């Protein structure tokens, strides 16, 4: 009996030891999300589409997010886009065009601004809301996470994310279609202090093998924790989003 007990105890120690040392990818992903932004917040972004000849086109957006799946983005510039607003509620997305009135449903793969960023990049929810970690590895200075979309409605089927071990901030993300084709690569850089303990990248750059020679850049500013009423994230409120600023 004694040798059997010792064997079972040894097995338990080995198993619990392994569990304690294993990388919990989903918990890590949650930490990455909170390092990037509070769950509910407002922010300003500049989006720049850069063409192969170096010329560029810029857009400025004000964005509000609440909870896991509510987000609205208002175009402040250029004049041709001013007042347009996009709303996301879970998998639902709409575009409101001033003077046209009725918001129309749009899809995550479309782009309201052209260039490499699509609507799901502009209205990005927390990574942990849309993805589960299917594989997690670590190196001396990085975590390597492979994320799988929780539903088929998510824009990218798989993400491969490199996370800095020290800061828990994402460095690069490769986005793949279900076919395994690389759709785009996102690169975060320029760590900045946004106040309230939020230290995160102020720049996101993306390029795509589907748009050779083109790239898009997103610059972040004034990311502040803020709570909003649920009714802000409704079609009827889209003409009034500017009142939140």
């Amino acid at each position, binding site marked *: 009996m004694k040798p059997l007990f010792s064997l079972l105890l040894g097995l338990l120690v080995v198993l619990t030891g392994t569990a304690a040392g294993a990388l919990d990818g989903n918990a890590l992903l949650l930490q990455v999300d909170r390092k990037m932004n509070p769950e509910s917040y407002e922010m300003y972004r500049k989006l720049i589409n850069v063409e192969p000849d170096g010329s560029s086109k810029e857009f400025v957006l004000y964005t509000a997010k609440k909870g896991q799946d509510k987000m609205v983005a208002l175009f402040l*510039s250029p004049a041709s886009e001013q007042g347009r607003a996009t709303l996301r509620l879970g998998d639902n997305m709409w575009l409101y065009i001033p003077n046209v*009135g009725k918001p129309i449903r749009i899809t995550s793969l479309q782009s309201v601004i052209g260039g490499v960023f699509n609507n799901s990049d502009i209205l990005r929810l927390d990574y942990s809301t849309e993805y589960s970690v299917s594989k997690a590895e670590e190196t001396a200075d990085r975590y390597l996470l492979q994320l799988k979309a929780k539903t*088929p409605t998510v824009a990218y089927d798989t993400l491969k994310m490199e996370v800095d071990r020290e800061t828990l901030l994402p460095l690069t993300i490769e986005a793949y279609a279900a076919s395994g084709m690389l759709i785009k690569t996102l690169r975060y850089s320029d760590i900045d202090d946004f106040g309230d303990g939020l230290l995160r990248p102020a720049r996101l750059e993306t390029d795509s093998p589907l*748009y050779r020679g083109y790239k898009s850049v997103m*610059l972040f500013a004034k990311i502040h924790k803020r709570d909003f009423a649920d009714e802000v994230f*409704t079609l*009827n409120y889209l003409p*009034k989003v500017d009142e939140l*600023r």
Partner: protein
Amino acid sequence: MNSVDPAPLPLHLLSILLLGTGLALLTGPAAAADTFSFDVEEFSRKPYDFNGYAELKAEHEAIDESGALGRIDGSEPLDSTRQRATGTVQFSGTYRWSQASFNWLLTAAGQQASDGWHDTADVYEAFFDVTPATNTTATIGKTSYNWGTGYAWNPVGFINRPKDPGDPEESREGYLTMAAETIKSFDGALRNVAVTGVLLPVLSGVNEDFGAADQLDLAVKVYLLLLDTDIDLVALIGDDQTSRFGIDFSRNLTTNFEVHGEIAYRHETTKVVLSPDGSVVRRSESASSWLLGLRHLSTFELTTIIEYYHNGGGYSDEELSRFYRLVDTAPQQARSLARSGYGRPFAGRDYLYARFSVKEPFDLLYLTPALTTIVNIADGSFSLAPELMYTGFTNWELRLRVTLLAGEAGTEYGEKANDARAELRLRYYF
């Protein structure tokens, strides 16, 4: 404000200006280095917003000399072609104080055409709104409404001005109304509910073109976001001729495939009909109109919009054909019938709308070619409009569009005033 004043035609000058500007735009923008900065204070909120656009448009039309709708006013076309040059400015703005705001949308256009100079200036919108709480808004003034989920037509748009399906996203004139709206959000299958009530008076000089005079109409819309589907229940309550009810929906079936639809019912409305014996009868009948549509985005960025529209109160192809023949035999009676319903756009019963647009084909960034067609299903006549749109320069938009109309004699598009139209439009947003 309208005036007509014959003047020499400076169309060639405008065309040169438009083409010159277009070519200058297409030669390419200045290159910029990758040293981007973001001064967010530039975008701090002000108590007022002021923006709009200025537009130049040159049009060339090939006249259909046999088209009944071109001859209905009794005039004979002077030429086989017609040119128009139009300059338009639109100003929109908002002034805010505390929880209230004043909003306006003004438009003015001057047009030099073969028959002289025309100009217009209109107040499309001018209204106050008050938002005492995030979920409640009250509005008073001239406001435009855009109810319905259809892209080209809106059978449930009971208080909308009709769209131009050729340019459905252009702003339209509103009505003088008083409105209140409240929104409530929930967790669960039903995520949002919004109730909008609109009082629309029809008096001498106020909303006269809306319906019967000296009455107060009430329009109500209840919006639901239920099971990821937009649903609107819509009613217009007025006199017997005005009242109608409808429902619409819109839903994404997949990330790139949306379906939508509308159905509206109108009880016992009067319709003026030209009988086979030439007499004009006023018929009282109930009518249901409906629309079913889809929007699809392919992997190569082809957006397809297709809509089928059944206009329950419309005329059959035989009734329309009878009317077109009347233009030659009894033009005065035809003019009167045109005002009673035969002359309105999309007076037939069944239409198909299809639009195909490809974003940035062959890696040509900011270039969008599109093809739009509208078919009168009963008589087989149709319009076909290929176009090219370029938006590569901040705040500039250049569009070239050709519209071709085809149909036998006695059909809707066969009897239009022109056979073809080419249009070059340059718009600058400020």
